């Protein structure tokens, strides 16, 4: 199966993952809305996940895909926690601007 697979397919998948990751990163750095920033982190997650699946497919084993299942499970739990935190932070300051919490500096 590996032999029949054209090599550019892998690079396409990897490129998709890299684009997703870069988009998420840029969004995280540029946006100030906490929810958007959180979504951007999720986007970076998905970029990495696509890369993992692509390599798993490329190498013909299931380790990468198993790993992806775990990542998705944890990401779901973490998303619930993160959104709850965002709600709490919003209740404190009545705003979603990340700069409102900038005084938590060292």
């Amino acid at each position: 199966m590996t032999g029949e697979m054209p090599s550019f397919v892998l690079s396409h998948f990897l490129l998709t993952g890299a684009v997703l990751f870069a988009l998420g990163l840029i969004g995280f750095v540029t946006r100030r809305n906490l929810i958007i920033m959180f979504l951007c982190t999720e986007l970076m997650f998905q970029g990495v996940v696509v890369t993992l699946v692509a390599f798993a497919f490329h190498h013909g084993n299931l380790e990468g895909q198993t790993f992806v299942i775990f990542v998705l499970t944890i990401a779901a739990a973490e998303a619930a926690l993160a959104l709850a935190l965002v709600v709490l932070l919003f209740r404190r300051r009545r705003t979603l601007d990340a700069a409102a919490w900038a005084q938590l500096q060292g």
Partner: protein
Amino acid sequence: MELSTVKWIPWLPAFSAVICCLLCIRPAWRRYAAAVTVAAILASFIIAMLAAPRAGDPEIRGDYETGAYGQEIAAVGETVTAFRWIHFRDYRAFETEEAAAAYTAENPDLRDRPELDPETGAWRVLETTFQADFAYFIDPLTVLMLFVVCGIGSLVAIYGAGYMSGERGYARFFAAVSLFIFAMTTVVMADNLVLLYLGWEMVGLASYLLIGYYYHRPSAVAAAKKAFIVNRIGDLGFALGIFLTFMRYETVVIAEILQMATSAEHVADWRDYAIPFLLLMGAIGKSAQIPLYMWLPDAMEGPTPVSALIHAATMVTSGVYMIARLTPLFELSPYALPTVATLGGITAAFAATIATCQYDIKRIYAFSTVSQLGYMFMGVGMGLRYAVFGGLFHLLTHAFFKALLFLTSGNVMHGLHGQLDIRKMSGLRKVMPYTCWLMFAGCLSLAAFPFTAAFFSKDAILAGVFERALGYHGQEPSNWFFFLGSLALATAFLTAYYCFRAWFRVFMGPTEYEMGQEDHNGGDDAPASAAAHAESHDDGHGHGKDHGRGEAHEAGWLMLAPLFILAAGALFAGMVGYGIVKQLIWSSTATMTMPAIVDDTSALHLTLMVLSGAIAIGGICTAGWFHWLHRDAAARVGERAAPLVRLLYNKYYIDDLCERYLVRPLHAAGEVLYLIDRVIIDGLVAFFGFIPRLLGWSARPSQHGVLQGYGVAMLAALALIVTVVMLAVYAT
């Protein structure tokens, strides 16, 4: 009683000090501190009087008059070891086994057999190179000192139980008194110089604690510090003297040192010339001689029983005791004992002139103490059996009459709420009759009125000085000692004058007085001490709620009873104790090496007795004329001689000169050193403390709290790591 029980003499007061500290736990327990202390000191006194005279060879005491008993120290006194303290042991190497075996045979106290050194193969023996135990050397001199320390100590403690009642820190006072008795008995019983020095420093500590007893009073704190620091100067010399003694004799055990110093083979070298002068520094510091006398008058800031016990009767005599104990060391240097005598003679006259123009009763007696200590120094510094006996006998009689004088002046102070100025009191004999006649007895003795105690002791000193000056008992006639003797006679006149000046001023003439400011009922105290004071009312102290503020009154019976014993001592100790003390001193180590009495000097003694008796009566009459009968004449003479009076009142301005030329330069030097400490030492420390702060300051901006910033930092770090990894991968 077994001789070995003497080891309890210092330790009973030591336990009493601990118990007094424990009694501080509960306010209700504190008033038992006096009973504990008195019981402990009295028990020590009884042990000392029953057990200690058993020490030594009774044969020696039999023929003490001739002084022909040889020089065996071991026969004069006995050593009682309480427990081992400091032992250093080291190997002594030998060439052959036979040499090592011979050495162990010669020294039966070695505990180990010769052994082979595994490294060098030489023979060696383990032996003690330094030994200082809690061991007590008891000879007749120690017995005399124990009589003074424990006897006067217990009387003063009884007096203190009344005098101090209601004071804040009642238990603290008795704890310090017990500590003092522990220390002082250690000094007079010490078998080695290290233990002697330990006790010497402990009496200094107890004195410091008791001078600073009223620690909320700045003058008391300053006086305590002054006493401690001035004593340190002397003690530095004493410590160096002990070091040099150990270098010279390779032991610190007094009996062994004296044995070696008096042996015929001993050849004096420079160390023997230096040791007495270093030891003398300690003695003049503790016994308040010129130039280290300044602390003693200021020490009167302490409670009056302390002035009586420590700063008149006992502690200040420890210098005299030390010189007497180590006299054979002093005799090795031809100038040491004459220096002692000269210092003493000059101090006696110097302090007596100051005492004539003081107005504070306690200060008069303080300078009188300095002066009388000068007499004792003159006695022990004469190097003749009669003079040394006189110096140490004067130590005993002085303890009686000076304690009596201080305690009666304490009664006056107590009755007049802290008033001590003799210009502000007059005719108190009607108000406090017992105190009046008790102090009269003390003054008679201090003035050496014929047949009182000090008459005999002072006469013994004077006789000794003139025996030396006129060249009896194989001495060279000496003009210098004749001058010292004449100075001592002049001092005797001044002594009679100044003590009766105070007495006539205070107790004779019209009755008028001004109350002092001090509320000794404990005005600044918490209610707890007021309650304790109310309870103490029935022990005869005499203060109560019914006692008005503005009237003078006689002291209670608890305070008067010990004074009667002291007064009996001040009047009759001379007649009773003369023969006993002479036997004690002449069969102790103090006069062991002195020349034997060969000439008949009874005519000289009789002449001096008549002369000094006449001088005493003359001084008393002069004082009575000016300060009882014709006080206006005294005032006129005082105005005529105003500059002299001012000079004497200001103690020859010595304190001011010290302040200006000694204390202030030292303060300035201290400021400079403080600046160096602040700038260089503290600067260095601060610099090393600044480095972590600098690092933190440089790293702090990275923690700015902006989430995006953290994101960028993570990205940058990631990029860096990836770049490094890629470079590494492609480089291979």
